[in-house]
């Protein structure tokens, strides 16, 4: 076999071409953070609290400093002049007192809270020495439930539109439920890390520090680190390399990023930190962990006239860079694809003594979709209607597009830009052979098997602005270079951006080089999050390449937008429940997803299938459990269970392009999250169906223990 084929001369947008990224990753030439090293580098190890809540009396570092190979060791005094880490998104003054400082000084608030650092000549020696630190803590009672009266309550997000009271007063039926989504997170296979390297410079900024291991939002992090350390913005330079998975978690600004950069500048040598897996499970952002009480006012036809929702968001010990992003998204997107004319919601942000929380793929949507779809299933059961029928009656019709949801999120009004939701539902049901599938499952249940089908629908969001810049340049020899402030987290963005550029310029996409995550190559950039890169960077490169085609050698363009785009989807799960163990096997999984226009269908399907695996993890397996002292019980992959190939069903993807976005010239919507969004909802419904108990599953993950307890009732 030779090199993989690469089509030429056809339209490249819509073509499943092979990825530009793959060759170095296949032959062992990836440059992940751990693969970068410099001759004189030092190694940093973080000393962390092993108490969930307490008064920090001090950290004894005498033995640490006397240990072999140790160059320096610091507690909070060393970095007391640094401010707490600010919000990157969705900030509120009420939350600011709860931002995390670089090292804890007076209180420790979760197991894993950084209290000191050790810097040594060798990573083994740094770890040895860190174990000699004496962390003196007077324990306090930990708070472990967001709805506990002891939980600090900085802020409740509230929203109301329509006439909720009238809808409930006039309701034919009121359907109510309580539901919980457990604490889990992204858990990329590569742990976090950073290498800060001081560089003597003769440029206008003088000496600089280069950061390897930076990801997701390189420009934001470099500018923010510079400001916190009292440097000029250009003095901190991001050098993004390969990134071993992002999922919302990696690349946010964490205390360790400041600790490593400060150490490198103070010691004048490269300083490298690579966390171990236990640290990652203790210290990187957790997510989900929301508990809901919802009520629906339903009219005689089964139309939901109002939803009244109240939920608690367990933020953990501090508020990090995402501010109120996750509960804000829950608030805005809970009504989903349904009309719901009146809506009231209160989202209570509460601090507990667990790891601080942030976003994880489909943040606020995995949770609110689980709750809304459970509610729709409950309405169906109340009215004796088929779950698909109750959804069809409530869906927003295509003639109502664009549909103003009457709520804002991430600083933009939620206006669904386009969609034919009923058509997508029909496509899913046709593909399933819905009626005959249901009959077949009923027959299997009649023969003694516990098998069932569940469906879930949702509206996603993508393409968060407000801008993206791209510079395109023709290179000697026929190639083209694209420079962007976006980032790669392994999703294949280089290929997609090259495809769009090549389509416009009529060149081979393999001759397009995409440079990203290098903060000294382009003035600003927003990075890779919120399924934004294909939409924002994709359209920016389309504009820049179009200009280049007309004008010559170099072109720059900016794509500005004040609105997100809204892809939408429908999931179906078939599960089998083992009566003896309570174990759930997903036999089949189908995702119908409309992304407006798929630049590379193979990569879109890859995003969806991978997203399903993470969704199944959250639905059935993954849970950050704590004991009554606040000790985390999932600190290794023996206890934090992620799906292997053995747990992953065959996934069928129905990729749909019915509703191109009218908000950009290519019709693009983002594809990164919709594989995950409705997994909890569809699998819970399928378990209900399998065990013949509508509404049984109200909390995730549906572990064997939980399912077995439901079977016993």
């Amino acid at each position, binding site marked *: 076999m030779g090199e*993989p084929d690469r089509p030429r001369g056809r339209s490249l947008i819509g073509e499943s071409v*092979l990825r530009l990224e793959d060759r170095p990753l296949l032959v062992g030439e990836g440059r992940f953070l751990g693969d970068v090293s410099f001759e004189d580098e030092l190694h940093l190890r973080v000393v962390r609290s092993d108490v969930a809540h307490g008064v920090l009396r001090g950290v004894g570092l005498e033995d640490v400093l006397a240990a072999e190979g140790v160059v320096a060791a610091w507690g909070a005094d060393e970095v007391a002049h640094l401010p707490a880490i600010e919000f990157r998104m969705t900030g509120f003054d009420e939350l600011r007192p709860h931002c995390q400082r670089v090292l804890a000084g007076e209180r420790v608030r979760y197991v894993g809270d950084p209290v000191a650092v050790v810097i040594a000549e060798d990573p083994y020696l740094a770890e*040895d020495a860190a174990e000699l630190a004496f962390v003196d803590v007077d324990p306090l009672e930990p708070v472990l439930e967001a709805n506990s009266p002891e939980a600090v309550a900085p802020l409740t997000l509230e929203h109301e539109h329509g006439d909720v009271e009238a809808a409930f007063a006039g309701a034919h039926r009121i359907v109510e439920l309580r539901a919980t989504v457990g604490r889990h997170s992204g858990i990329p296979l590569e*742990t976090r890390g950073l290498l800060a390297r001081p560089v003597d410079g003769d440029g206008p900024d003088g000496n600089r520090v280069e950061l390897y291991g930076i990801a997701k939002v390189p420009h934001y992090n470099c500018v923010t680190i510079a400001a916190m350390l009292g440097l000029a913005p250009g003095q901190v330079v991001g050098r993004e390399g390969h990134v071993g998975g992002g999922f919302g978690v990696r690349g946010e600004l964490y205390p360790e990023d400041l600790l490593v950069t400060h150490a490198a500048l103070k010691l004048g040598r490269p300083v490298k930190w690579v966390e171990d897996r236990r640290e990652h499970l203790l210290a990187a952002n957790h997510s989900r962990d929301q508990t809901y009480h919802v009520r629906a006012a339903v009219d005689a036809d089964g139309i939901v006239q109002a939803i009244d929702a109240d939920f608690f968001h367990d933020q953990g010990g501090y508020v990090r860079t995402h501010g109120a992003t996750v509960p804000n998204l829950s608030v805005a997107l809970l009504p989903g694809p349904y009309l719901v004319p009146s809506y009231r919601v209160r989202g209570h942000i509460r601090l507990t003594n667990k790891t601080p929380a942030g976003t994880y793929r489909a943040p606020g949507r995995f949770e609110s979709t689980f709750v809304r779809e459970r509610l729709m299933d409950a309405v169906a059961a109340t009215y004796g209607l088929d779950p698909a029928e109750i959804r069809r009656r409530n869906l927003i019709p295509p003639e109502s597009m664009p549909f103003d949801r009457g709520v804002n999120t991430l600083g933009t009004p939620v206006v669904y830009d386009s969609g034919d939701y009923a058509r997508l539902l029909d496509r899913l049901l046709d593909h399933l052979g819905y009626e005959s599938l249901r009959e077949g499952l009923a027959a299997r249940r009649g023969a003694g098997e516990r098998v069932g089908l569940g469906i879930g629908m949702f509206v996603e969001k993508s393409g968060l602005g407000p801008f993206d810049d791209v510079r395109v340049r023709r290179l000697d020899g026929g190639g083209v270079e694209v420079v962007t402030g976006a980032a790669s987290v392994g999703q294949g963005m280089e290929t997609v951006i090259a495809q769009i550029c090549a389509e416009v310029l009529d060149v081979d996409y393999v001759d397009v080089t995409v440079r990203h995550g290098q903060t000294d190559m382009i003035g600003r950039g927003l990075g890779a999050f919120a399924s934004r890169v294909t939409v924002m960077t994709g359209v920016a490169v389309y504009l820049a390449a179009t200009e280049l085609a007309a004008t010559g050698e170099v072109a720059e363009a900016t794509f500005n937008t004040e609105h997100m785009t809204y892809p939408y989807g429908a999931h179906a799960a078939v599960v089998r429940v083992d009566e003896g163990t309570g174990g759930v096997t997903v036999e089949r999984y189908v995702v119908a997803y409309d992304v407006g226009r798929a630049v590379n269908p193979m990569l879109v399907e*890859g995003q969806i299938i991978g997203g399903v695996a993470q969704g199944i993890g959250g639905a059935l397996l993954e849970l950050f459990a704590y004991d009554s002292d606040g000790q985390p019980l999932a600190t290794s992959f023996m206890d934090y269970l992620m799906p292997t*190939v053995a747990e992953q069903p065959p*996934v069928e993807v129905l990729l749909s392009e019915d509703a191109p976005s009218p908000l950009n010239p290519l019709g693009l919507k983002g594809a990164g999250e919709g594989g995950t969004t409705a997994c909890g909802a569809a699998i819970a419904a399928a378990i209900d169906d399998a065990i013949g108990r509508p509404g049984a599953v109200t909390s995730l993950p549906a572990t064997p223990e939980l399912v077995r307890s439901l079977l016993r009732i």
Partner: protein
Amino acid sequence: MTEISAADVAVPVVLRVNGDEYRITAQPRRTLADALRDDCGLTGTHLGCEHGVCGACTVLLDGEPVRSCLLFAVQSQGAEIRTVEGLAGDDGTLHPLQEAFWRHHGLQCGFCTPGFLMLSAGVLETRPDIGDDELREALSSNLCRCTGYQTIVEAVRSVRDAGEA
């Protein structure tokens, strides 16, 4: 302060990796993974958990897939070690598994890929006719967080079916 134990005294270690001999000095506690990455400069072998679950560090030791994070460098002496760097031909020609992972979109971030490639190579070399169910079971040894595994399984099956490994 720190007590010196035998495990802290570096000793000469000879590793045979991809047919080449590496003479390094390592403490007995040094893992094979760290020795490959930091002493031999073969950073294609990745560390995802360092407790033997994720399989990102899988290499072949005398043809058997092993977790290099759970082995010490000193105990790997005398064995033929193969890493991802040894899969492609000297002229850069990709191994059929590498080719198949590319064609089937069997990788996204690529961090777990070297481990899956070495696991698959070890499995197919010893059991070229392995059945689908046993192949899935073998591949369930390793974790991937991006792909959902479907395309990885398709890639390995295609190589098995072509009888190329």
